[in-house]
């Protein structure tokens, strides 16, 4: 069974003009107008999806940043005050000193260095030259951190390039 093409001209304009909100019920009037409604829904859906993407990217954009890099944080130190935020930088070699409460070190980035007083036992991968994200606040010229998170890069490098066979899985 098929609809003659003439039906398009008859049912088309009237139906599209009146029953915009009719939704699935409009399908009963014939396949051709129903198809137009679906196209309209698809267009509306695409616009909504695009708007959502735009909102997420633009509106929430800056607040979705997990941390502030050292250079930017130092630049905004006045406005940041003693508010809580996450600071990101690279652990400067030779600056790490264990303390009774945690660890002291310096983070660098963008040519700026900030001394850190951390009251948290560092994660196992904490070491010199590794990027870290510190949860805390500025206290004078130093940054008081109550949590240290290691930020791993997307690079994977073999530890022993000349030894293909690693120790058995049970080791370490």
């Amino acid at each position, binding site marked *: *069974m*098929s*609809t003659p*093409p003439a039906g398009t001209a008859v049912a088309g304009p009237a139906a599209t003009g009146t029953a915009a909100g009719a939704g*699935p019920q409009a399908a009963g009037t014939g*396949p*051709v107008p129903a*198809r137009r409604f*679906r196209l309209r*829904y*698809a267009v509306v*859906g695409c616009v*909504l*999806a695009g708007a*959502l*993407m735009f909102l*997420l*990217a633009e509106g929430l*954009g800056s607040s*979705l*940043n*997990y*941390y*502030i*890099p050292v250079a930017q944080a130092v630049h905004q130190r006045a406005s940041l005050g003693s508010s809580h935020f996450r600071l*990101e930088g690279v652990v400067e070699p030779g600056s790490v000193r264990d303390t009774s409460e945690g660890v002291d070190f310096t983070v660098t980035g963008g040519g700026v260095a900030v001394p850190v007083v951390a009251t948290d036992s*560092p*994660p*196992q*991968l*904490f*070491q010199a030259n*590794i990027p870290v*994200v510190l949860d805390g606040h500025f206290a004078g010229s130093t940054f008081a951190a109550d*949590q*240290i*998170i*290691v*930020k*791993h*890069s*997307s*690079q*994977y*490098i*073999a*530890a*022993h*390039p000349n*030894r*293909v*066979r*690693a120790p*058995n*899985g049970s080791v*370490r």
Partner: protein
Amino acid sequence: MTTIAPPADPRLAEGAPATGPDGSARLRATLWTLGVLGAVSTGATVWLGIWVTPPDKVQGNLVRLVYLHPGVAWVALYLAFGLAALASLLYLWPRTRSLVWDRLAAAAVEVGVVFTACTLISGSIWGRPTWGVWWAWDARLTSTAVLLVLFLGYLALRRVPAEPHVRARRSAFAALFAAVDVPIVHFSVLWWRTLHQGATVLNPTLSPEIHGSMAWTLLLGIVALTVDFAWMLVVRYRIGLLEDRLGAEELDRAIDARRAEGGAA
């Protein structure tokens, strides 16, 4: 001749094979092949990943988790949800409208949800020793969690009783809406500052930052999980087909029973 009236029972006419409930011999052979390939390649990935590849310079043995996590995420995000979005589009497009696409989208989403959960779990298990935390509310992790919730909503929506084509239409829109989050998850590491590292292989310059046996193992892991996904998808599709077939049979029986009652009275 552009439009075709819906057949008497769309569930039987669209994609239902004339074969028995166990499927054709070819289907069974395909499933067997996929199953063996998937099991062997997954096993090989575990062997290479845990015993053969070297430890990483920075993270030591923890790098071994990296052979699993990206493959699982690849299947969830791009294969499963990508396929679900494509199938939903094909259903909504009038020329290709068929319950075959609806069933495929449903199958892909269900498998995709399982893989997304595995992505979050495997990532969490890597994050605890590497970052020092099980979870961080950064853009990548949050958008992935949102993705899981959105597609769980899709599966819930499918359970609302409705006519097959009403449900298919509704589900297709839901899938397309949820799939908007897929590119957000992918680009989140570029658009925002995240704790999660950027892409190692599919980075903007497409220059992999992993080499040698580590790279090959990562690649094998992705292939292995893709094959596993294919097996699960085919079986899940068959389940949808059989459910519809059973539903149609029961409907017919109910109609027959009603008719018999009417005839007796």
